[in-house]
């Protein structure tokens, strides 16, 4: 049986890596005594895969994954059994049974929405922040140094930015709503967006990222792009 589900990742546990999260889920499933399906071979592993990874330090309202079980159980039962076995800061929020008509999640993912809280090291005028965001969206290419396999290279991230707006702003912080592309091949990194912003404002800042949604294509049961 194939279950597709989403979990929240909160503050308490945000500084764990994707690998850590993977291990944590596997162990939680074992603690919940779920009938996990294992891969064959010398080193059997539960069949668990993720739509995408969440960067270390980010929080999220819904990270999607799928897991294979040997016996069928109700999605609601799945949630009720796994949640008490998860550490503080992690909680399954949705789950449904899926058949093979839905492709693997990593093939269906298209975009991600973030709420970015940017703390400025020196005071800034709210208007400048709004102008900077507007400039990112309207003034053509957004060139940022991007880490690639062959080193750091300047790259235009504008095509990866689908939406960006200022939700709240003061002279010390701003809260931004940003939607970026996200596929198995890559996409917008919140960190590069913040770098583009701080470049335009000519100041240093520290930010926290909260992923409010992952967006998919190809299934009605998964969240879609607005």
């Amino acid at each position: 049986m194939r279950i597709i589900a989403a979990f929240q990742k909160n503050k308490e546990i945000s500084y764990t890596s994707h690998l850590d999260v993977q291990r944590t889920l596997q162990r939680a499933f074992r603690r919940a005594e779920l009938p996990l399906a294992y891969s064959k071979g010398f080193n059997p592993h539960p069949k668990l895969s993720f739509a995408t990874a969440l960067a270390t330090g980010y929080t999220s309202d819904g990270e999607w994954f799928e897991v294979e079980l040997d016996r069928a159980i109700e999605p609601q039962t799945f949630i009720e059994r796994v949640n008490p076995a998860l550490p503080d800061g992690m909680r399954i929020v949705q789950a449904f049974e899926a058949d093979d008509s839905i492709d693997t999640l990593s093939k269906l993912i298209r975009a991600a929405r973030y709420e970015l809280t940017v703390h400025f090291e020196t005071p800034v005028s709210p208007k400048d922040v709004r102008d900077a965001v507007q400039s990112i969206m309207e003034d053509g290419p957004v060139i940022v140094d991007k880490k690639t396999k062959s080193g750091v290279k300047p790259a235009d991230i504008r095509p990866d930015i689908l939406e960006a707006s200022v939700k709240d702003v003061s002279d010390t912080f701003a809260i931004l709503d940003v939607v970026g592309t996200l596929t198995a091949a890559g996409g917008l990194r919140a960190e590069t967006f913040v770098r583009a912003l701080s470049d335009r404002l000519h100041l240093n800042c520290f930010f926290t990222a909260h992923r409010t949604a992952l967006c998919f294509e190809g299934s009605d049961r998964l969240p879609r792009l607005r």
Partner: protein
Amino acid sequence: MDAILLDKLLSRVEKPARYLGNEWNMTKKESYDFRFALCFPDVYEIGMSHQGSRILYHVLNSMDGVYCERCYAPWTDMERALIEANEPLFTLETKSPLRDFDVVGFSLLYEMCYTNVLTMLKLSDIPFLARERDASYPLIVAGGPCTVNPEPIAPFFDAILIGDGEEMEPEIVNCMRKAKADGATKRELLERLSKIEGIYVPSFYEPVFENGRYVRTERTNANAPERVRRRIVRNLDMTPYVGKQLVPHMQIVHDRVAVEVMRGCTRGCRFCQAGYIYRPVRERKKDTLLKQARDLVRCTGYDEVSLLSLSTGDYSELHELLPRIIDDMAEQKVSVSLPSLRIDSLLKEDLEKMQTVRKGGLTFAPEAGTQRMRDVINKNVTEEDLLRAVTDAFTSGWCGVKLYFMIGLPTETDEDILGIADLARKVSACFYRLPKEQRGMGFRVTVSVSTFVPKPWTAFQWVGQNEQEEIRRKQQLLKTAMKGVRGGELHCHPSVLSVLEAVFSRGDRRLAPVLIDAFELGCRFDSWAEHFKPDAWAEAFSKNGLTMDEYAYRERDPEEPLPWEIVDALTTVAYLKREWNRAREARTTKDCREGCNGCFGERCEDYCRISKE
């Protein structure tokens, strides 16, 4: 600590999960009146793997009103970040500074972590020296195997625990609670603590040095015991075990359920400090272990169980335990591993059983290359034992084996060094002798060589360490000899570190100021090659008018007074001398299960009985 500040710190360091806390099975308490900070002077992934800390965390948190929290040495990036933010080091549970605790206790597992103790005190604004701390500071204590020679670090601690800690720690807590209720002064408290068996209060003793050598220890408080007897837990089966093992978010060194099968070892290898300082052997019952493994797997979700002890192959009920625990665990896709197998106790069926779920690595420790050398160190294992064991393993499908050796052992000659390569060659031959269809692919025999470090309370406590140049020569000799070994691979541990280890393991109180100077000169994480600063250490020694050579290389006269004899480690010095003499004649001593060798002197009857219970 303020949430944004914590976020900032975490965003700046590598592996932030080290400082996160909130792991599965972490103890949470709302109300408590006694705070204990359990500190480990190395990084999280090492400290979290330490079984002793797990036991103490569990024991202390089982006490009413006591909240035990954990703190590990911050990696250098976090140390910098804390200093820059002007923030104190904090515990993982409640993110509190160490200053807020009643007791700050360090686990000392190896000498190379001593500078990290200073880092942790410094980041907590706690003076290094016990005499500079009044009653407003937490009580700073230490325990762990290093404390059988407490002298090099004695001035830093108010009290030092020698021996098994799980009964002493609650006694300390209760003693402190009572002292507080009675309005006792710090000195009165220390005096009461010194009455607890196993507790050493360094300020009540004053070592005397003449002509640059240690001569005796004088007591400055007549109420303190003459010598501090190592504490032991008498009945291991009845002692509390780790009820809920912590499950870290990040990968740690020993990332699995650990079940302590027994404590102590009967073999009597003469170089092995653990073999001497955990005597007598105490076992847990098979059924207790099965229950513990089952409970721990259920509450952790781990998929591997390790049967922990100094020599699990010697566990008396192993052949009943192993098939049952493996079957039991296989149902839940949990594998069983034995970290310390003796070549002679390994059975083919057990090997095959172990492979049913998951295949682990195979490691043997012949320790020396020739029979003569193995007789000197009393490693009663023969070449035939080893070759039979690896052949069994190779037929069972293993195609790699790791062999551990030491060089620089007393009486060692070049022949003994070449014997190591010879043994590797024979192991390799055992593999290639098998018909192709019976053996695996990609054969490796990995020879791992460390430098012998003489340790206090062993038969070799008087031995002078080989000088570095000599060690390098021997390593080179072995390197050349290993060249012809098919599938052979050689790893030599750097010998510089072993010198410092030798210095501190047999050091005296004059080394405490050296440690402080080395710390000030930037020494941290000395067991990590990338951080080890040999020049800074040399400077710290010369500043204090001391040399490393004197501590590491000088052979002690067996009649010479030794600074660590303030401790009564239960094994008598007379016995160690006897063992040292036998070693020089390459005469072995039997496993003490075959009959008492008399290591406890007149206390043998009592202690041997503990073993048999």
